[in-house]
């Protein structure tokens, strides 16, 4: 049920500070779109506007439109709670609920939305954990706390938790930055599988990672510290890395700054 995202004229603010300015782009369904750019360029902020998580930050405010297929996430009658159910999110640091078991972590989102039969719940939990390539590692200890897993496993648990509610879009905010290389590889493989079912947007600091996992890449930059971040260009990943149309992109990718 992956959906297309159409962003037009979107700016985000922290209080009176404009963090990102006038961004428009289209994210294709069933693909991986990577956001790259130097620190502070607003790529994480922009990501958080796509499921209305930006506004939970004190002073956070958004202008512009984000269409999910044809529905504006910022429409006047839209419930942010419903948006976040539809657009799942995986965070920079793995954040399983520390007091819940592995099973309960995966089931947490489902339980919010009504009653599922025991067997139905088991089925979805198993499917989600398999979907996150974690099932074989945890199937014998589903009742143990999720905080007992390794960092990479915890992150996959968070992915399982996010996909259990069958979102249309999956946002990932530097999901591997707190992980070791082997766990990173496992997550990257997983992303490749998940894009069959979801629209995936990933923020990454690691350009190799962007090159490995994404179909399209967006480059963000800011004119100077304190200036709002802007979208410089978005294109097929190969093009961005081989032959970008903007000089700044090339400079960044070749490591001349950032």
């Amino acid at each position, binding site marked *: 049920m992956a959906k297309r995202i159409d962003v037009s004229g979107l700016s985000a603010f922290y209080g009176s500070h404009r963090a990102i300015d006038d961004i428009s782009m289209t994210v294709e369904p069933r693909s991986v779109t990577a956001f790259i750019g130097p620190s502070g360029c607003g790529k994480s902020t922009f990501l958080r506007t796509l499921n209305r998580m930006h506004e939970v930050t004190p002073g956070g405010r958004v202008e512009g439109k984000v269409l999910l297929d044809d529905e504006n996430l910022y429409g006047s009658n839209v419930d942010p709670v419903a948006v*976040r159910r539809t657009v799942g999110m995986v965070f920079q640091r793995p954040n399983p*609920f520390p007091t819940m078991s592995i099973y309960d972590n995966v089931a*947490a989102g489902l339980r919010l*939305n009504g009653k599922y039969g025991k067997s139905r719940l088991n089925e979805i939990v198993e499917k989600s954990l398999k979907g996150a390539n974690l099932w074989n590692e945890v199937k014998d200890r589903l009742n143990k706390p999720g905080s007992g897993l390794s960092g990479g496993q915890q992150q996959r648990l968070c992915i399982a938790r996010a996909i259990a509610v069958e979102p249309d879009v999956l946002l990932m905010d530097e999901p591997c930055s707190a992980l070791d290389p082997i766990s990173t590889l496992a997550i990257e493989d997983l992303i490749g599988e998940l894009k069959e079912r979801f629209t995936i947007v990933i923020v990454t600091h690691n350009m190799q990672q962007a090159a490995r996992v994404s179909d399209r890449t967006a480059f963000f930059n800011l004119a100077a510290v304190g200036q709002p971040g802007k979208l410089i260009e978005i294109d097929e990943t190969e093009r961005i890395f081989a032959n970008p149309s903007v000089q700044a992109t090339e400079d960044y990718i070749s490591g001349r700054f950032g």
Partner: protein
Amino acid sequence: MASTTPIDTPPAPPAKSSPGGSTGRMGDTVFSGLSKGSGILLLVIMATIAVFLTYRATLAISQDEGNFLTTFDWNPAGDPPVFGIAVLLFGTVVSSVIALVIAVPVAVGIALFISHYAPRRLAAPLAYVVDLLAAVPSIIYGIWGALFLVPYLDGLNLWLDQYFSWTYIFDQTQPGVARNMFTVGILLAIMILPIITSVSREVFLQVPRMNEEAALALGATRWEVIRMSVLPFGRSGVISASMLGLGRALGETMAVATVLSPNFVMSLHLLDPGGGTFAQNIAAKFDEADQFGRDALIASGLVLFLLTLLVNGAARLIIARRKEYSGANA
């Protein structure tokens, strides 16, 4: 701090005195000895409190012709002297439990209000007001309770008796003004609200933001975020806060002494006047007590001391355990 980086710099300018080995060593010995001595002094004070109270208490208890634990009377000046703590223990526990039952839910509500619900500009001043309220002396709560609260509660008592007398505890068998255990419980609840609130609030504010964001990102409403990540995280903190509040309520003297019209009857009819607590009894009986009577009061105080020791110790243990737990989790 930047000045420390060059290692070759001679230590002369910042160190005002010459760091001569012997004076430094001497000073260190004296100073560490002093501070260690203070720590030991505290332990000694605690120990002597226990020893002295126990000693004076045994003087009294050994001459008690009644059973110290089960006697329903306090007459150390009688012949033979008869006194027991049954009613006091009962009253102390009952009033504190009422206080806790009322205060904990409300305090958790206020703590959540300050930490998660209040508009941002209001949260900080509110926390401040709650802290100030903890500073109001108990005697002032006492006269406010006796002169102002009691008349207001008379009507409520009648009403409770009318509709809830089937619960037994709200069955008022002796009509009278509301100088009863229920009122004492309410007043104690108001008095321990600030401490429970401020400890709970601190714990709620410590909930890692990423735990809350995890719940939010799953599409949880604000209440669901609190239920999924805030309350589980804060549970042990709330429990220990409640124990601290309980400790306060157990030992509270003036508020009970001013509000209650005491007697030596043990009754679960909370709306009937009467009953008593350890601290209230000590304050009330002290003036008329001779030396032996004072020893008897000391004996009852010893029991109160042990009771609060138990409750506070338990609270501290829970806090300590929680620290380990969250440390392992970080």
